[in-house]
């Protein structure tokens, strides 16, 4: 430290490292010009405040649900998206260089793609080796000859850059198939501009929003789409994708509906989105799914996420896909070693952004270099397919056997930048993921991007976002920047669209979410009643209503059926064991923990439709143990509370549109079924011991308070049944559910305008009318056996109708038929 300045700085701890460029400080430990305002500002904010900012930013990302789902599925826990508080500033002069280099590279790569999927002159004239096309899984034969819309073969492009020791930027990797990170860059900017609102607005930082606007406008004009309500969708592999958060964020920000493979279908050589009211044409797809998974019909048939026939639609030029299918050719690692020559040949220019030094083992010079320097080089797959370099396999032999499949590259020594970690500043290796999109005339580069950081260069090289951190890249302008609010987006029109239609898949998941929630709540109430009784001083056989409660559990297959169905035979210990199974066993489909898992899964599938708060509540269900731990009664109470909180938040925050209707419909169907079964099973027993069983029936139906408030009298059969069956003002009654269902079906989109023309409408009306006409007067225990029998018949018929109702709704609106591939087998002939 040569400086005489004695003011202590947060950055005093930063050590200059040999072999790597230091982003923030010169070799003389002087802060670089474009870092000065940021270092100064951070020092002024101070360590304590930064710590708070860090926590705040973490909370914000958590609330936004910004996660990386783990690649390793066994952990089942998602990792938070790690954003560092210290941005990575780049001066505008330097950025201009990056911009020019990236634009040139995008133009070059697009020309290469156009040739590869067209005349293949580069192959014929020997500019590229045959292996690059014929032995490369990234070249898709079925995409050859396809003319993409607007003649644009590359419409979004990303590259990983690093700054070498000499201070120059080099390209480590190119991405075209489905570049990732655009959404995380956006999230970083949103969080940073909120946390450092003051600094952000004082500093002249180029805004990201105009880039997204350019992207959108170029797509509209290229594909000749309507300005209002263009048929663009964002195609995600779904919630199981590690980057699902990014897809959901981009979908919201760009206003492109988030769809999955099963939402789309191909008819007449065109793509359609399956919605409740029917098929809606799709004219452009912003895909976040790799080339090979995009079309199970033409490409890999084992893929579950694609759309069968998508490539055929491309052949017919009926869709604009960003990026066009087959563009993953650009991702081929070895391609970049040919770019310097191809740049001269195709653009008559020198390549502006140099590559990270790499050699292909498929030619003799490259192989020689690899053999001579193997110890200092990193061996990689040349074509990007998975290669197993671990274990006892001799790498030298592997390379010699199939040299064209390997490439070697120089050690990576990226620059170091200050990073905030555990209350202090340390140095972190840094890559820059930068993005470009096609414009009418060429390419536009996003002024900023995603800085990816890690404590060691090896982690940086790997594709493991859960082990890396990130920074927001700030491109500092010399001129004042035009204010452009990120959050407003540019798609303000969509805010006012009250489209009353939604994808069938979403409706299906919401319906089941409603059903599972209700199922979980019902079961928990039932088990809670059982535990309450067992926790008293009475012996099981002395609790008359226990038989009734256990009968219900047995009927629902939650505890095993005993041969004589008599609880006096059931030992207390046995019973406890059964109940534990009902609570904690993951392998039992009807156990509490299994149903809770299904609640979480379905909620996850529609995460983008639920409020942030409700998504947070659902994560608390993770705490439900899978082994007996503590007081089950307490656990059941707590879980019921969480579920109620979730239902309340989810329902409250949803507009009363179709999504809400489907979720509520699921709940009503499940509750009505549950209620019908409860009463049917309880009926023969209530008369044996009227008081206790009736009370238990009211208790598990959550109607005890209502009954007491209304009748203030002893429990009697007729009023209890009236409350649970016919009272339309009791939200737990059968009549209430039927009336809700009748209202819902009336509001579903339908093909025929005539009322009651579809079967689910007729069934709902039939159930509602039957329960309204139900005569319960004089219903008493004792002689009137026939009355009880006719009630039982009524309940059975209601259960049948409910099942049929659910089937009709699924069949009409949600039909998700599985796709089966078929191939003929060639057995051939053998001559006799």
């Amino acid at each position, binding site marked *: 430290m040569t400086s005489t300045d004695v003011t202590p700085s947060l950055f005093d701890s930063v050590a200059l490292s040999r072999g790597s460029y230091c982003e923030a400080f010169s070799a003389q430990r002087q802060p670089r010009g474009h870092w000065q305002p940021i270092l100064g500002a951070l020092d002024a904010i101070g360590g304590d405040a930064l710590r708070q900012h860090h926590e705040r930013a973490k909370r914000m990302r958590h609330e936004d649900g910004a996660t990386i789902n783990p690649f390793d599925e066994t952990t089942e826990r998602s990792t938070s998206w790690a954003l560092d508080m210290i941005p990575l500033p780049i001066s505008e002069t330097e950025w201009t260089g990056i911009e020019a280099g990236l634009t040139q590279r995008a133009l070059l790569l697009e020309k290469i793609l156009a040739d590869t999927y067209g005349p293949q002159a580069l192959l014929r004239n020997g500019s590229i080796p045959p292996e690059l096309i*014929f032995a490369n899984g990234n070249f898709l034969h079925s995409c050859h000859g396809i003319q993409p819309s607007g003649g644009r073969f590359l419409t979004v492009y990303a590259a990983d850059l690093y700054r070498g020791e000499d201070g120059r930027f080099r390209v480590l990797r190119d991405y075209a198939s489905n570049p990732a990170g655009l959404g995380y860059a956006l999230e970083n900017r949103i969080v940073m501009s909120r946390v450092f609102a003051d600094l952000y607005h004082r500093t002249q930082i180029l805004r990201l929003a105009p880039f997204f606007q350019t992207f959108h406008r170029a797509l509209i004009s290229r594909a000749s789409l309507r300005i209002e309500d263009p048929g663009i969708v964002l195609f995600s592999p779904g919630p199981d994708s590690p980057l699902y958060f990014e897809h959901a964020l981009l979908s919201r920000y760009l206003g492109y509906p988030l769809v999955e493979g099963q939402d789309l279908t*191909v008819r*007449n050589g065109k793509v359609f989105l399956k919605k409740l009211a029917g098929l809606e044409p799709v004219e452009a797809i912003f895909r976040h799914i790799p080339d090979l998974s995009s079309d199970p019909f033409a490409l890999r048939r084992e893929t579950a996420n694609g759309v069968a026939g998508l490539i*055929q639609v491309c052949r017919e030029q009926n869709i604009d896909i960003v990026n066009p299918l087959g563009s993953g050719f650009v991702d081929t690692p070895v391609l970049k070693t040919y770019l310097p020559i191809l740049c001269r040949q195709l653009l008559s220019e020198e390549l502006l952004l140099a590559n990270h030094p790499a050699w292909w083992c498929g030619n003799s010079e490259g192989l020689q270099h690899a053999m001579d320097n193997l110890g200092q080089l990193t061996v990689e797959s040349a074509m990007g397919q998975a290669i197993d370099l671990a274990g006892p396999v001799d790498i030298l032999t592997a390379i010699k056997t199939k040299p064209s499949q390997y490439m070697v590259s120089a050690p990576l020594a990226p620059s170091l930048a200050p990073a905030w970690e555990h209350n202090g500043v340390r140095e972190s290796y840094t890559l820059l993921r930068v993005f470009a999109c096609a414009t009418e005339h060429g390419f536009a580069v996003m002024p900023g991007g995603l800085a990816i950081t890690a404590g060691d260069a090896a982690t940086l090289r790997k594709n493991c976002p859960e082990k890396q951190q990130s920074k927001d890249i700030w491109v500092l302008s010399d001129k004042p920047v035009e204010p452009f609010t990120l959050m407003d987006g540019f798609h303000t029109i969509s805010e006012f669209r009250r489209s009353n239609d939604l994808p069938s898949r979403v409706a299906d998941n919401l319906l089941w979410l409603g059903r599972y929630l209700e199922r979980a709540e019902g079961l928990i109430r039932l088990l809670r009643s059982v535990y309450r009784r067992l926790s008293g001083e009475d012996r099981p056989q002395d609790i008359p209503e226990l038989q009734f409660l256990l009968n219900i559990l047995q009927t629902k297959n939650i505890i095993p059926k005993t041969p004589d169905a008599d609880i006096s035979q059931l030992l207390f210990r046995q019973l406890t064991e059964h109940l534990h199974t009902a609570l904690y066993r993951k392998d039992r489909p009807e156990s509490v923990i299994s149903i809770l898992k299904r609640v979480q899964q379905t909620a996850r599938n529609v995460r983008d439709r639920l409020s942030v708060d409700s998504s947070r509540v659902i994560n608390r269900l993770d705490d439900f143990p899978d082994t007996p731990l503590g007081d089950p009664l307490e656990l059941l109470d707590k879980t019921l509370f969480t579920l109620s909180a979730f239902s309340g938040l989810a329902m409250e925050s949803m507009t009363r549109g179709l999504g809400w209707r489907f979720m509520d419909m699921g709940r009503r169907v499940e509750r009505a079924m549950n209620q019908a079964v409860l009463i049917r099973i309880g009926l023969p027993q209530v008369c044996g011991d009227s008081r206790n069983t009736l009370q238990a029936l009211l208790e598990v139906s959550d109607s005890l308070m209502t009954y007491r408030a209304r009748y203030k009298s002893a429990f009697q059969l007729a009023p209890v049944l009236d409350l649970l069956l016919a009272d339309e003002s009791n939200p737990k009654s059968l009549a209430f559910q039927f009336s809700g269902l009748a209202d819902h079906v009336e509001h579903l989109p339908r093909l025929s305008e005539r009322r009651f023309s579809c079967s689910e409408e007729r069934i709902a009306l039939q159930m509602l009318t039957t329960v309204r006409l139900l005569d319960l007067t004089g219903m008493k225990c004792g002689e009137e056996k026939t009355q009880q029998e006719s009630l039982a018949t009524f309940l059975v018929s209601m259960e049948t109708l409910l099942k049929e109702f659910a089937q009709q709704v699924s069949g009409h609106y949600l039909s998700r038929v599985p796709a*089966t591939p078929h*191939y*003929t*087998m*060639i057995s051939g002939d053998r001559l006799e």
Partner: protein
Amino acid sequence: MKYRILHKTGYNYSAPASLSQNELFLYPRQTPTQEVLDCQLTIVPEPQYLHRRIDYFGNTVHVFMVQHPHNELAMSATSIVRTSRPVTPAPEKTVAWESVVQRLAGHKQPVELEASQFVFASPLVTVNSSAIDYARPSFAPGTPVLGGAVDLVRRIFTEFSYDKSASTVDTTVEQVLVNRKGVCQDFAHLAISCLRGLGLAARYVSGYLETVPPPGKQKLVGADASHAWISLFVPDFGWVDLDPTNNLITNETYITVAWGRDYGDVAPVKGVVMGGGVHMLSVMVDVRAQCEGEK
């Protein structure tokens, strides 16, 4: 020879299929030894969408979609072709296999570059040491390339048993090598894997073969089948077709439909069906020699 080929594929679904999408490689290729006089494609129910194109390898492909509920689907192709006996070089007179490998790697001539795409592993034909080891005995140093291939095909014919029950569409080359049995598709894949492993260019050919009933027996309609064999690149000559299933260099009784890197490129019928429950597949092929003038 003039042939009339009828190739029928039928699907019966246990439940109505709502959407069916299919790709057909049933239209025979025009080659120096094969003239396609006519080819008619009939699909029942009539598809709402039908598209025809020439693929990367020059094959004719039809893609169609039936978009309304249907319980069965029938596709039939009726082709009339005239074949002639291919001229093939004497196997022992062809150049040494090593020099073929070199010429393909050097690919100085456009035909060699064109052929070199069939040197590499493809999705269904892996190339690994076990296949190379199997190929070696047929390719001693200096062996004429076609001589070696003829011997390889002979060994596959004698050492592997023909067994329809042993294979599925997904049977791999490794499995065939271990099990020592399979059908024509498996033998073709194995032979291709062996040849590519050495650095030679070999492609997969899909087509038909006229079968002759045993003496005194009448030929049964539909007794034929789709067939598959291989084609080997011989420099300064072109491609020579060999049939590992029957230990033959192909003749005028072979009708070529399509070729590609492996079965996956040229499956005669492949498709995706939405719904439909359980599928019952029926395939019927009939290859009839025609008199000239007969329609």
